[in-house]
């Protein structure tokens, strides 16, 4: 069997890549996609740890993460659409009306 730590390290790497996307990219859509990468890195970690513990609860968590992810995508994308309509940009650093 592949050691669980491999999966965990892979999950960590994917998560870090997702974080990098969120922090560095300016395109809101891409930031959003990076968040999805982060979510799924966590999913992988959950299942791997669940497997290591011999429990299925980790998979149930993944199930819920997916549902929440779907809801988040629906609302988030709707927000991006609305923001684009009013500001004609989806650059994260240009949508900064809420400063100071």
């Amino acid at each position: 069997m592949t050691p669980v730590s491999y999966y965990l390290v892979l999950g960590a790497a994917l998560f870090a890549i997702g974080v990098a996307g969120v922090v560095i990219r300016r395109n809101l859509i891409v930031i959003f996609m990076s968040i999805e990468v982060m979510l799924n890195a966590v999913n992988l970690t959950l299942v791997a740890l669940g497997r290591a513990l011999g429990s299925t609860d980790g998979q149930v968590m993944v199930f819920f993460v997916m549902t929440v992810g779907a809801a988040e995508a629906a609302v988030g994308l709707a927000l991006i659409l609305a923001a684009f309509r009013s500001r004609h940009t989806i650059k994260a650093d240009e949508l900064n009306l809420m400063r100071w």
Partner: protein
Amino acid sequence: MEVGVFAFFAVLAVVSALGVVLQRSPVHSLLALVATLLAISALLIGLGAVAIGFLLAIVYVGAIVVVFLFVIWLLNLQRDPGEPGHLAAKFFGAFAVAALTAELFAFFVRAPVGPPPAPAGYGSVDRLADLIFRDYLVAFEATSLLLLVAVVGAVAVARRWPADQPRRSGAGASAHGELRRAERA
């Protein structure tokens, strides 16, 4: 053999995840995201979570990412011009991400070496359904409510209200309006 399969999908996942972040064109990012998700779902199946693995592909690849695609089209996003942006932010961001990677690795390399053999029926739909509909029933019902709220909210937010309708002339715009009217009817 197993490790080889793992390595293949792991490399695929990492490379395509990097693709999500690094691609200039949102559509290419999106395609890379699809590849990442498929790799992850393959890895989940490899871990014995067969049902969840396929569900991940159905839900994410089959639905959520398609919605991303629609939004990209709707916004008519082209390739990013690639301006440098805030270099300082990028620098600190990269630094923080490196630190995060290091810390996470430090955590996880010490995890148990080999997973115990999966018990019979591990990761099957039966077992999963048993948990979801018994132990996690309330949470499950709550997520259904959450989805409903999210759908209503998304429609309310993304809807084009009459006041902010930018009136453009042209065949395309009016055809679009017709379509909307027809959909509403």
